[in-house]
């Protein structure tokens, strides 16, 4: 195993373990915290994959914003009393079975996933020469302008939605 592979192995194992922790913790606060750790690991993986911008976004948006939102909501809901209750649905064996089946299928199908098309223009060298941020920006505002705009609409909807749903109304 080469060094990168060892690195990857560490991250893979950690991410997997963290995922399992997230879905098994009784206390959602713990879950969110483990998730935070996981996000950071994923961000490192992005760095590993030459996606600096993504790593930054991952930390800022995901870890910084989304998870904080989660924590706030957990606090807001004050769900301590539920900590003593069952963690899983009665159907959990079926879920486990589904999980196992998914694993089997995925391993069987995706085991030797290869890249078929020839390499595109955004080689490591190209990105390095331009800078990751610059590259992403150019593509985003050029080719992917429309998606970007739509994303803005989505965020707007999210704002309106949140307001509509929880805002105190003047009755």
């Amino acid at each position, binding site marked *: 195993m*080469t060094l*990168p*592979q060892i690195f*990857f192995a560490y*991250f*893979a194992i950690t*991410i997997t373990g963290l*995922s399992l922790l*997230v*879905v098994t913790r009784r206390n*959602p606060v713990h879950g*969110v915290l483990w*998730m935070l750790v*996981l*996000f950071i690991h994923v961000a490192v993986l*992005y760095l590993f*994959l030459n*996606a600096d*911008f*993504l790593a930054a*976004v*991952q930390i800022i*948006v*995901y870890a910084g914003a*989304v998870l904080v939102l*989660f924590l706030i*909501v957990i606090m807001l*809901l004050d*769900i301590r009393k*539920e900590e003593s209750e069952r*963690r*899983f*649905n*009665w159907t959990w064996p079926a*879920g*486990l079975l*589904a999980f196992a089946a*998914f*694993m089997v299928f*995925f*391993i069987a199908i995706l*085991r030797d996933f*290869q*890249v078929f098309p020839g*390499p*595109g*223009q955004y080689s*490591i060298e190209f990105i390095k020469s331009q800078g990751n941020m610059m*590259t992403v920006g150019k*593509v985003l505002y050029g080719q*992917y302008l429309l*998606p*970007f705009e739509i994303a803005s609409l*989505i*965020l707007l*909807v*999210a704002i309106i*939605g*949140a307001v509509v749903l*929880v805002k105190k109304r003047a009755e």
Partner: protein
Amino acid sequence: MVPLSWYIMLSAVVFSIGVLGFVTRRNLIIVFLSIELMLNSVNISLAAFSHYLQSMTGQILVFLVIAVAAAEAAIGLAILIAFYKNKPTIMADEISFMKG
């Protein structure tokens, strides 16, 4: 060099764990986290593809997914709060007044 399939396998595993969490957990906050897990797994594979294909599309998509995930989080949590105000529970199997 790390083979692409490793990333894909990692992504698959995390995705599956997300599914597992979604279908087994009662607490909707955790269920929500499971969904985020699934999104992250997709992001991992997208970033990996992007890297190996030397294409920028994957990265853009990851960026957009994160944006959408944030939006989803906002709305999803708002919905949860709205529900909680009426019925103080966030357990999946207790939110089942409508069935049949």
